[in-house]
């Protein structure tokens, strides 16, 4: 029986539920589940597709259509997200991953994928092989309370010996002194900051002033921002400063796989003319410090925002948050259109993404704040 890829409708919910159960039963991860509704309502502009074989669902993916600005000009593109295939648990469907990527490209040639969990995962390996331009979105962190950081950072507390050593550093104060010496626990001077209740026309002015500075940036006007960070959601802190803005989260973790029970501040999203990046980051980090977070984290691709973080006392850490641009989107963004380097004996990876330090991507892109 042949497969076809169709729009997800309400009648298919039961078949999606069965598909999810087969994935779980076959050993897929708990997060590898497709929405059991055609309208999950996570983000604006989403359209869900299913790979169906008769009455059975064998896979699915989501396209989220967005407007981008390419050096000031508007461009349509889409986020390719959550591709799931029965090939994860049944090799008879090993071809479905490629089929779904090609189907998505036929609907929107300018695609991007973001996150993906690391270079060794099947999706980035596949996209790289298909000639998509790829890079990691750098991860930055700043320790505010070294004692709590050392007691709760699960990524470092991997053995009894390490845990004992980190506890000794935490309780003796030596950890604080060491981090201070390394500049990892530097506090920012406090400055008055305007916390906005929502995104209003002032955000449109920021967008219009800022967009020409970026080689590639997803639309961040007031309407779009209100959809992603609605004023009705009390989690989001909107810092308005120096002709720009930042969206922050202050989250008390509980048994988090990396952050344990720390209180983690996140600089989720930001926008400003490039010369204001430093002031926006300083203001955002200062707000989070004064609220009492233990650690501040941010993923930022653009060079100006990366520099602003480093100059505010952040350090770079390993990043599994990957960006992939389809050949057509990479070309539209000013890069060279890559062709897959196929052929036996000539299986080469696509070259790394050029000029990516002028692209603005952070945790506000892709899935947005839904996993934060």
């Amino acid at each position, binding site marked *: 029986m042949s497969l076809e890829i169709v729009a997800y409708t309400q009648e298919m919910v039961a078949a999606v539920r069965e598909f999810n159960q087969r994935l779980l039963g076959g050993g897929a991860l708990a997060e590898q589940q497709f929405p059991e509704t055609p309208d999950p309502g996570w983000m604006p502009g989403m359209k869900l597709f299913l790979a169906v074989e008769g009455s059975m669902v064998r896979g699915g993916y989501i396209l989220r259509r967005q407007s981008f600005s390419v050096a000031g000009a508007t461009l349509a593109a889409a986020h390719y997200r959550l591709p799931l295939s029965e090939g994860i648990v049944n090799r008879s469907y*090993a071809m479905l991953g490629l089929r779904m990527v090609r189907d998505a490209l036929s609907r929107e040639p300018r695609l991007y994928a973001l996150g993906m969990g690391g270079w060794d995962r099947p999706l980035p390996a596949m996209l790289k092989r298909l000639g998509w331009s790829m890079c990691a979105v750098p991860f930055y962190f700043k320790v505010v309370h070294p004692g709590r950081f050392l007691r709760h950072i699960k990524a470092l507390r991997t053995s009894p010996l390490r845990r004992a050593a980190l506890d000794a550093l935490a309780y003796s104060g030596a950890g604080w002194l060491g981090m201070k010496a390394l500049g990892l626990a530097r506090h920012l001077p406090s400055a008055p900051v305007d916390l906005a209740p929502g995104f209003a026309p002032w955000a449109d002015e920021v967008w219009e002033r800022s967009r020409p500075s970026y080689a590639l940036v997803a639309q961040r006007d007031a309407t779009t921002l209100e959809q992603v960070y609605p004023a009705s959601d009390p989690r989001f802190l909107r810092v308005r400063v120096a002709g720009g803005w930042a969206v922050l989260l202050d989250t008390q973790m509980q048994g988090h796989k990396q952050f344990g029970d720390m209180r983690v501040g996140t600089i989720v999203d930001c926008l400003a003319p490039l010369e204001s990046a430093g002031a926006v980051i300083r203001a955002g980090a200062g707000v989070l410090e004064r609220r009492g977070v233990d650690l501040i984290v941010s993923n930022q691709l653009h060079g100006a925002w990366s520099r602003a973080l480093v100059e505010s006392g952040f350090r770079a850490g390993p990043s599994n948050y990957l960006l992939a641009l389809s050949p057509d989107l990479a070309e539209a963004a000013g890069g060279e259109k890559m062709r897959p380097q196929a052929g*036996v004996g000539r299986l080469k990876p696509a070259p790394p993404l050029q000029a990516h330090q002028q692209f603005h991507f952070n945790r506000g892109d892709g899935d947005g704040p839904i996993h934060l």
Partner: protein
Amino acid sequence: MNEQVLSRVLEIATDVLQAGVTPESSPETVESWDSVHHLNLVLALEEEYGFEFSPEEMDQAKTVRSLALVVSAKRGE
């Protein structure tokens, strides 16, 4: 089906999958034949023969022999 095509497809599959394969080999019988290797195999064949598999052809191509059959058919053999 052209035996030369089958022979060449077997060579390419052996190289890409890094495993011994027969005409009846499939993702279910070859440990390394996962989604990424399947992609590598399809792209290698497309590059070798200068065409792209249609979605229907990708559905049909579930063994090395069926891949070779699709290649033969596209070449008009």
